[in-house]
């Protein structure tokens, strides 16, 4: 029979293909078994001898998802608003308001950032060319330019994240773009989330900024302090002004920003409360007693001071090219061991930026055993660095990473050769992470971690064990039941089921898909659903036999008539599989994929394989029993 031959050929081809795809998985498994038995020198020789084959097998094997092997999945979102802000020139109040508006809108909706941003300007009748490109360019061109820059920024961000992850040495990381501005990073086997956070999130924008003169810094702090008490015009009134009037002028909102609930009651007459009333700013920011220009802020007060300094009325008090910058770490000081952040007065424009750094190396300071990172600069950077250090001997230069100051050493002498070092890290590990991010380069815009999931190795092992257990029991029960209920025909269906499992695994391996726990659940469910096709066929054959047909005719009729039901019902299930794949992430997609592959494999094995077996049997005069 020609049909029979075609079917046999199809089955053999499918089996060979499935085995071919599963071969690397088997090889990988057997390599690991062999390696496990060896130890010491033997295992090294074994790896040396089989390195290529092992890498090949590892690359092509059926991979386990993060939920099964343990690891971390992080979704990053590139801060496009910051990018738009960075790209703009001549920023004014209007611009800043729009940036703020867009930021709040994007936080709660899923709107695309750039169209929203552009519309805001158009609604207010402001031409984009005021801030971007040149005055002759129209809005459409600038929008295209911004879209292009955003696209480039995201691609560059992915590249840098990949660089960092590679240097962090994770085996088989997976980094991919999702939607317009998201990056998915999957790190198998990684556990330490705070390290990953440091590794991925920092933009690694390195800047060298000169510190402002301590005298100026103190005067700025003093003016903020006076502004908060409300006695800005202290000189003109000659100090004779009644207290009541001064109270009226108090910038109450700024004050409450700083003090919140902790403001001392007016009835409080202790010296402390009096000081807080008279010098609100200095109560929170303690200027350095040696007159070095920094202020000390208690760890718990940091947020309040940050918000106060951000207020426009406070910003107005700052002289041009003046900026307060925070230390990266809080330091333990004082007798009571409380931790303080340092507030440094620095110039707004950076003397030099991290783009010039060509290499970084984590190390230990031989003098005090503290972790450090040594940096090397390119020729241009070295020249600038020599000039800057030469011109500022005995002044202080702050080394800032992502707007936080790591250290602010005094320049001792002119540094030629483009060397510099960062100190102020808490641990050698932190220094190593810093080395990685400096080497990989700066991100074009900050990224935020918007989702993070990690699975520990023991939960993964639990999941594999229970998943496999469930699959095994499901398979055993189903096989036994089919045998019992349909006799020989049940046995044939069981053979089809075994092939079905082989095909599902083969196709998964062939697609380079990963096996997840829901994926295993999908296989278990497929075991249950797979017998449906054979139940339909077998029930139909029983009916036809009962109707008085010969066995051969009944089998033919059974397959023919059951086919539309099998086809239509499976197509509809497949449809939900497709939609599920679209909706889901990671593990869920694994489930959708196994479900879809399972349906396709079921159709094939239940319809083609069992048919071949029945035909062969009846040709040889064997009578299959339909129970």
């Amino acid at each position, binding site marked *: 029979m020609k049909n029979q031959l075609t079917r046999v050929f199809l089955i053999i081809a499918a089996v060979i293909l499935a085995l071919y795809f599963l071969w690397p998985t088997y090889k990988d498994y057997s390599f690991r078994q062999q390696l496990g038995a060896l130890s010491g020198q033997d295992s090294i020789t074994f790896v040396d001898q089989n390195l290529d084959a092992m890498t090949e097998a590892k690359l092509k094997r059926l991979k386990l998802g993060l939920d099964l092997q343990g690891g971390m999945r992080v979704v990053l979102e590139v801060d496009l608003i910051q990018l738009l802000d960075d790209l703009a020139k001549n920023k004014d109040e209007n611009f800043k308001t729009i940036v703020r508006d867009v930021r709040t809108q994007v936080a709660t909706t899923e709107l695309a950032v750039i169209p929203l941003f552009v519309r805001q300007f158009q609604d207010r009748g402001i031409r984009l060319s005021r801030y971007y490109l040149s005055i002759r360019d129209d809005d459409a061109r600038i929008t295209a330019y911004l879209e292009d820059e955003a696209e480039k920024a995201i691609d560059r961000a992915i590249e840098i994240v990949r660089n960092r992850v590679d240097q962090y040495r994770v085996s088989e990381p997976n980094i991919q773009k999702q939607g317009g501005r998201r990056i998915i990073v999957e790190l198998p086997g990684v556990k330490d989330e705070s390290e990953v956070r440091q590794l991925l999130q920092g933009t690694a924008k390195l800047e060298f900024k000169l510190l402002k003169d301590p005298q100026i810094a103190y005067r700025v702090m003093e003016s903020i302090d006076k502004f908060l008490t409300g006695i800005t015009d202290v000189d003109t009134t000659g100090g004779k002004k009644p207290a009541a009037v001064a109270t009226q002028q108090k910038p109450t909102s700024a004050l409450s920003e700083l003090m919140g609930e902790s403001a001392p009651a007016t009835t409080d007459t202790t010296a402390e409360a009096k000081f807080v009333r008279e010098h609100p700013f200095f109560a929170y920011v303690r200027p350095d007693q040696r007159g070095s220009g920094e202020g000390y802020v208690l760890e718990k007060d940091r947020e309040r001071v940050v918000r106060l300094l951000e207020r426009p009325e406070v910003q107005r008090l700052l002289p041009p090219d003046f900026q307060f910058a925070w230390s990266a770490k809080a330091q333990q000081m004082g007798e009571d061991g409380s931790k303080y952040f340092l507030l440094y007065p620095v110039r707004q424009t950076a003397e030099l930026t991290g783009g010039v750094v060509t290499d970084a190396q984590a190390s230990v300071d031989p003098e005090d055993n503290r972790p450090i990172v040594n940096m090397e600069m390119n020729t241009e950077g070295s020249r600038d660095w020599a000039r800057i250090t030469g011109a500022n001997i005995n002044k202080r230069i702050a080394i800032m990473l992502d707007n936080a100051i790591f250290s602010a050493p005094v320049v001792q002498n002119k540094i030629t050769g483009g060397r510099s070092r960062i100190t102020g890290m808490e641990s050698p590990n932190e220094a190593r992470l810093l080395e990685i991010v400096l080497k990989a380069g700066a991100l074009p815009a900050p990224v935020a971690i918007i989702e993070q999931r990690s699975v520990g190795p023991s939960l993964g092992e639990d999941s594999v064990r229970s998943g496999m257990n469930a699959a095994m029991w499901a398979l055993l029960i189903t096989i036994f039941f089919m045998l019992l209920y349909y006799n020989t025909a049940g046995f044939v269906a069981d053979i089809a089921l075994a092939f079905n499992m082989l095909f599902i695994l083969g196709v998964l391996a062939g697609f380079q898909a990963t096996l997840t726990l829901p994926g295993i659940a999908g296989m278990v469910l497929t075991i249950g659903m797979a017998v449906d096709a054979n139940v339909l066929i077998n029930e139909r054959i029983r009916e036809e036999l009962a109707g008085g047909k010969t066995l051969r005719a009944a089998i033919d009729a059974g397959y023919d008539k059951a086919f539309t039901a099998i086809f239509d019902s499976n197509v509809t299930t497949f449809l939900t599989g497709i939609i599920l794949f679209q*909706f889901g992430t990671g593990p869920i997609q694994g489930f959708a994929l196994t479900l879809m592959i399972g349906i396709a494999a079921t159709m094939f094995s239940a319809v083609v394989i069992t048919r071949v077996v029945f035909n062969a049997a009846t040709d040889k005069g064997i009578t299959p029993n339909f129970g």
Partner: protein
Amino acid sequence: MRLFKATSINFLGARNVWYLVSTLVIAAGLTSLLIRGIDFGIDFRGGSEMIVRFQQKVDIAQIRTALGEVGLGRSEIKTFGIEQDILIRVSEDINAAQTSTQIKEALKVGFAANPFEVLQEQRIGPKIGKELRTSATYAIVWSLVAIMAYIGIRFQFIYGIGALLSLAHDVLVTLGILSILNSLDLGFSVEITQEVVAAFLTIIGVSVNDTVVVFDRIRETLKIHRALPLQEAMNKSVNEMLGRTIITNGTIFVVLLVLLLFGGEVIRGFAFTLAIGQIAGTYSSIYIASAVVLDTEKLKLSKKPKKS
């Protein structure tokens, strides 16, 4: 072996009773949903969640005290499967970066003699949760529409509607029963996570499978016995397919039970949802899908004579 002899149950004759039963179940479920709201899991709510495994049994109240030391005493704390495994959930993430470190430190201090290991950690931003909710709703609606369209084309439009209603029935019944079970506080609750949404879509997929098989038989019966009234043709088809319906769904149900018992804590909610949906789906493909088609056809017939 044969469990089912040829039956001739008048399934569709009793359809009004079953309409009522379904309506009551759905109404009860919806009431519970309205009172409780949907029990969203971490995926959809956003926040931080951590599952830790202690070496020895621990008391939840003790964990609460330990977490209270760092101001996280109001977190949701419950066991996860076995008594050593504890799930801790903090809904707000004001300073998400520190929350997990804070929890770990607090547990280290509070349970110095009972070391623990972090099994799983999830932190989901509020935006992600919102997006997932939208896309989950879309996924369910689209799969219903896609199925309706396919069946409408392969059979008749009215069959598409019948399938749609029976699938919507399955989703609502399952959602309602989950909500009712959660409110009964049986020490086991199912939250709507991504996995559970996947289970809902699978329910749709498996239930429609059943419905289509019955429709296919009706289509065939109507072709052979042209004179047979629709109700009889439907009853005949459902009866003829009864053996298959029960064998197949029985097998799937047993398999789901295996998954529920052996599949582990992580997919328990998923397996449980599927099992409930499976029962609802089997029932609805017998009682709802065909019944809707029948009643619509009857309505058409009763209108026709009046016009002529």
